[in-house]
């Protein structure tokens, strides 16, 4: 009986992790070849909100602690440096907070807040013709995050890295071509050593100012 439970738990775990990797893979495969170009460094600021999911605290009873959702919010300052025609490197400094999960069952995943460094590479394609008053660019950036958080209401600081994929849809007006606004869908997976699974998905907006105009 116990063996079956453990096996079931392991299977569930594998299903969850496989699903997550498939999501990453699908996003990566459907990204089109980059064709648009941006010159000059871009500075930006973005904010997003979403849902974090945690499961399987390490060392704790695996049957008792079920997955629970936590709300999250983040503000990120960005620096994008173009490498080639449409490939860029991104540096982000993020402040983020994750609320506690529900107390169902008498327990919750803890609330935490902190900051992190996000390094990424991104590319995109222009969707609309240049004759349109508003231009659209579809793209994605992917990279790694390095986070320092503190459990809320405590003095405890902890570190965890992560990886992320951030599809975006950028909107800009050629008449005010140095600034743009983008809708982003950040998907994060965190390598927490005290949680077997920890990730988040969100939606947000990013405003960028380019030091040079678009080609």
């Amino acid at each position, binding site marked *: 009986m116990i063996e079956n439970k453990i096996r079931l738990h392991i299977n569930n775990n594998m299903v969850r992790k496989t699903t997550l990797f498939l999501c990453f893979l699908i996003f990566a495969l459907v990204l089109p070849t980059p064709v648009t170009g941006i010159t000059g460094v871009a500075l930006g600021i973005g904010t997003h*909100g*979403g*849902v974090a999911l*945690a499961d399987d*605290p*390490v*060392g*704790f*009873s695996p049957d*008792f*602690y079920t997955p*629970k*959702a*936590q*709300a999250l919010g983040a503000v990120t300052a960005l620096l994008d440096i173009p490498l080639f025609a449409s490939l860029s490197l991104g540096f982000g400094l993020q402040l983020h907070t994750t*609320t*506690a*999960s*529900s*107390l*169902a*069952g*008498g*327990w*919750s*995943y*803890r*609330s935490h807040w902190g900051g992190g460094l996000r390094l990424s590479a991104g590319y995109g394609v222009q969707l609309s013709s240049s004759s349109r*008053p*508003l231009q*659209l660019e579809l793209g994605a950036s992917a990279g790694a995050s390095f986070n*320092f958080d*503190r*459990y*809320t*209401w*405590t*003095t*405890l*600081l*902890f*570190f*965890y*890295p992560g990886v992320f994929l951030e599809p975006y*849809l950028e*909107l800009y007006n050629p008449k005010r071509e140095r600034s743009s606004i983008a*809708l982003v869908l950040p998907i994060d997976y965190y390598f*927490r*050593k*005290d*949680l077997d699974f920890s990730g988040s998905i*969100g*939606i947000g907006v990013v405003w960028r100012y380019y030091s040079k105009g678009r080609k």
Partner: protein
Amino acid sequence: MILRHPISRALPVLLSSIAALALLFSLSGCTLELDYDKYAIVFGISDYPGTGNDLSYCDDDALSMENLFIEQGYPSSNIYLEIDDTATRANLEAHFATVASTAKEEDLFIFYYSGHGGKRPEDPQNGSEETYGSDSLGEWIFLHDYLQYVDSNYVENLDEAICDDELAALLRTIPCVRKIVLLDACNSGGFIGNVLEKDGIPSDFSFGSDGIVTNLSNAIYLYTNYDGYKSDISPADALVIAASGERESSWEGMYGHGVMTYFLLQSATKADLNGDDYITVSESYYYIYKNINASWNNTTSALIYDVFFPHVSGGPIDYILFTK
């Protein structure tokens, strides 16, 4: 012009949908079904053998905690209270055995202790085994019979005390998943077995905090060197609120209680920081340390005695400690 664009029209709908989804997730656990039994072992020792080591309020602390647990809905039969000369290691082990045989996985278990604590080698005969913490000594709680009268003197017998790893082993015999340990004793921070979290408050508060760079680099070090929970009471064993750091004394005399216990008792009604009518371990801890800082560390009490700062277990999980 922007509003006429199809993407612009879709954006508010998309944002609203995501927000509604997030709200649904966050509210999914609003109705709590807290249908479980609660157990507590409560030990308080003011009157140690002889007169030189007596404390003033630890017995009152234990009685007040018992009353609080009854108010919190603990059946009297599930509270194991021992005061002064009955607060012995034999009784402690017997009560742990009783709870271990009756409690279920989903139940809540709390161990509360108010009395002397200290640092000694974990293995008095063969020297120390402690490998984690700021020194090579283990932390102990001194139960009543640890002082024994031998040749006209009171001498320590650590066989009647409990060290950090021994308490962790006892806790592992309790089948409850949620276990909380509340220690109002000197050096009790050393019972906490955090391995992934760098505490921003050092084990001796009077030394001042480490700088931000040290804290961040220590956090990375702990992450990269994590090898599972090893010693002391890990967050998986129990969540601990300790009155003082590993290298600190804790104090009593706050309106007839130990300082930590005084604010712990208050936290049951005053520490609902997020207004959800439940007080978690983290909320209670925050209330305790904020008030000890304000009412002890920043007053003349700290000049006469010494500053101290409570500590708490890390880990990703929090438990309901009190219901408002």
